[in-house]
């Protein structure tokens, strides 16, 4: 299945695009998706361990299984501040 990933902030900037398409097997977990993304885009691989994944606008754990048609977003650390 083809999954469209939304990219933001430093990921968007480094890749020069705000989305990327990955071909994944049905049953793929979030951790597998991150590994596939790191292999495809080594420039952002070091950033991915600190990112969260949101599916359909909700944070999900690394063992969450993707479904065709999911809205998937890679969420770098948010702005924080004191």
């Amino acid at each position, binding site marked *: 299945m083809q999954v469209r990933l*939304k990219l*933001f*902030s*430093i990921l*968007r*900037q480094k890749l020069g695009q705000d989305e990327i398409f990955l071909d994944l097997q049905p049953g793929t977990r979030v951790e597998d998706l991150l590994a596939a993304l790191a292999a495809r885009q080594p420039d952002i691989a070091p*950033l991915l361990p*600190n990112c969260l994944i*949101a599916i359909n*606008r909700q944070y999900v754990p690394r063992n969450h299984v993707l479904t065709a048609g999911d809205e998937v*977003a890679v*969420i*770098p*650390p*948010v*702005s*924080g*501040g004191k």
Partner: protein
Amino acid sequence: MFRVTRDKISVADVEACVKVYGVGAVVYFDGIVRDHSEGKRVKFLEYEAYESMAEEKLREIGEDIQRRWPVSKVAILHRVGHLEVGESSVIIAVSSPHREHAFTACRFAIEQIKILVPIWKKEFWEEGGDHWVNIEESTSPTAK
């Protein structure tokens, strides 16, 4: 009212939403772009959001507050795009029958926003250079 917007925001934008009949207190938080950050002079900021999710998360924070404390109304606005020093980036308003809960809930709201809401801040410095806050070290040049 829970909104991410590119327009300028102010406390006046949320007053009517929270100052309803029966409340005894309204507490506002107005988050403002500072002129300095970790020893550097800030020229301006750019905020970027995953807007649809950010608005959902703001609404969830409001619902969480309603479950935790007896508050009347919650409103949160977050601005994105180019912001100058002195401009408001986030406005929170909480009303309640008694002030204690409004103070507590308003503080809770800003702390939760900083953890949960997918909004990113990029600082641009007077001396030149920039960085994504909480992602890149401010002491090293930005890797491009």
